[in-house]
């Protein structure tokens, strides 16, 4: 890919116009192809599942009928999506709308407002020292997902109070808390309150872990 300056998607819609992004590789603004691949992979998985299905009964239409329709829909969408990403590079635009369930254009028209005001303006692109950083903060994501995975693994051993306090603390840290020691207290308090409220109060069966019997 040659190094070309192009207007971003934001520029095309005339919002925060003048910034340009330098394209350094084929993948610039095309990471969304990952989603196309996922859609097609899902379709392939459904195809395999449908083909190898051990059909019971003799209802017509059978259990493979509806999945086949869904599967064809997914193949078509995966291809169309990939083509649309290849045709237009999509760049992160900073603070993004909260919900994508609704077309901001449509709501702006109904509400007689500017498009930008519907979900807040698109704001500044995240950037450090002149370079446009990747949109997502993978380090924080790794902390959150890793913390959740660790929680699930340790829950049967540590019991609810300690496992969930640990999860609480890790998320606090990931979200940029400045008081790790104070957080330990908050986490233990929160975990104990949920344990007492739900286990004792509402009769849910939360694991006690190694404290079994002591609590």
């Amino acid at each position: 890919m040659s190094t070309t300056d192009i207007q971003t998607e934001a520029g095309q819609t005339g919002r925060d116009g003048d910034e340009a992004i330098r394209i350094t590789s084929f993948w610039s603004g095309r990471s969304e192809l990952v989603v196309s691949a996922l859609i097609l992979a899902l379709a392939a998985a459904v195809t395999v599942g449908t083909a190898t299905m051990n059909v019971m009964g003799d209802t017509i239409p059978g259990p493979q009928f509806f999945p086949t329709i869904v599967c064809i829909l997914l193949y078509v969408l995966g291809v169309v999506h990939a083509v649309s990403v290849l045709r237009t590079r999509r760049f992160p635009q900073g603070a993004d709308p909260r919900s994508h369930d609704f077309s901001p254009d449509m709501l702006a028209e109904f509400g007689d407002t500017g498009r930008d005001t519907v979900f807040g303006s698109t704001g500044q692109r995240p950037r450090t020292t002149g370079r446009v950083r990747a949109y997502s903060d993978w380090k924080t994501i790794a902390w959150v997902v890793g913390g959740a995975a660790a929680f699930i693994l340790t829950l049967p051993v540590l019991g609810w109070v300690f496992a969930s306090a640990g999860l609480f603390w890790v998320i606090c840290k990931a979200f940029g808390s400045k008081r790790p020691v104070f957080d330990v207290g908050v986490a233990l308090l929160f975990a104990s309150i949920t344990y007492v409220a739900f286990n004792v109060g509402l009769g849910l069966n939360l694991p006690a872990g190694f404290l079994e019997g002591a609590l």
Partner: protein
Amino acid sequence: MDQLTHLMQGFAGALTLANLLWVFVGALLGTAVGVLPGLGSSMAVALLLPVTFSLDPTAAFIMFAGIYFGGMFGDSTAGILLNTPGASSAIATTFEGHRLAKSGQAARALATAAMGAFIGGLIATTLVVFFAPTLVKLATAFGPAEYFALAVFAFVAISSVVSDSIIKGLTALGIGLVLALIGVDGQSGTTRYTLGLPELFDGLSIIVITVGLLALGEVIHVASRIHRDPNAVKIPASGRALLSRADFRKALPAWLRGTAFGVPFGVIPAGGAEIPTFLAYGTEKRLAAKRGDTDFGTTGSINGVAAPEAAGNSTAGMAMGALLALGLPVSATAALMIAAFQQYGMQPGPLLFERSGDMVWTLLASLFIGLVILLIINMQFAGLWAKLLLVPRQYLYAGITVLSMLGVYAVSSSVVDLWFLLAIGILGFVMRRYHFPVAPVLIAVILGPLAETNLRNALTISEGDLGYLVASPATVIMYALLLVAVAYAAFKHAAQRRANRASAKVLEDA
């Protein structure tokens, strides 16, 4: 006037000390989650849904009614004071509401919003009481072909007509349909897509999917941005929310206009309250321009708060009717409510009124009680709720994470479910990251099995003749309406793209 007798019996059932306590607790919790910055009513319902499992169904649904409306009341508080509407249905309220707050009239804005939500909810719930039996009668006349058409209508309306991108909306729908297919097929007994895991024979729990997509997915998404986006500015509010008699007279027509916009959208599966709230806001804006009202758009006009808020809650109220009588979820939050019913082995729809009539009427009665309680706690303690806005973000999201784990674990005490939750949470994050709508997934998960069963039944009856699907007038009307809506949306999308292209700069070779 059968309905009145039923409703009175409902009140008799709802007005016990225990049930009053549950509706009060639900209203408190719902408002609290709604007020918390960035959290909306759908998050309130998703997080608190599992909390109700240990209660008996009636108490659970009464509490739920409080949570459902409480979240709606709370959303606008966060929007007005912080300019961070918890749900997109509260955005329209935020425009004028936040202007009022910035010009030092936060109490007036909060009072107008609370009163608007009360009036909208009250009128809609009253309509539900009187029209639910008619809807039920209509629904019992529906056969498989009509139910399939209804499901298709909901699928296409939510994924294509209102969504930002038709491709992404339909993809989200497809993902939801696949998730709904997992498990043993009820009609033939065939095991489908379980990957050999016995945990999946009953299908992926709807609770896992909703909590994963709405709560955990949101946490991961916020985590991906928290060190990159600037913080919002907080506006303190204190004391009680007050509304003078003059303000009341000024806002009353706006409340009623808003309600008129909201009610029809409660039975149209178009994603919920977003469209009516924006329509209501746009109308007030045009009326203000005509009257020469200079407050609107500058220091803030209470009419601009009143109409969208009434529209939002009247949609929510009517949606409850559509949900109970037809089994049709019009929005993601309504889909969650259906999940709650299914958790108790009840299927909302015409049969619900027959089989669990007592419970339904008690639920409807407690909606009224919930609204009164919410009006009082939101008017009298507005300043107290505003304190919740000061909860540090790290504790907020840590709390959500722990509560979503708790909720899913509570369903069946299964660690495997927690892994599914994490996987769905990551899916929710990827969808948000690439601007895919989430609502179509939930609608597909809820209505997918219904669509499949009815399609297969219809084709069995007609012995494979596809013409049967469009044989009755009801189906023809539904498909025709859908075609018009899709054509209109496609036209709008194309026009927008042309406008964008026309305004974009052209790269010229020198």
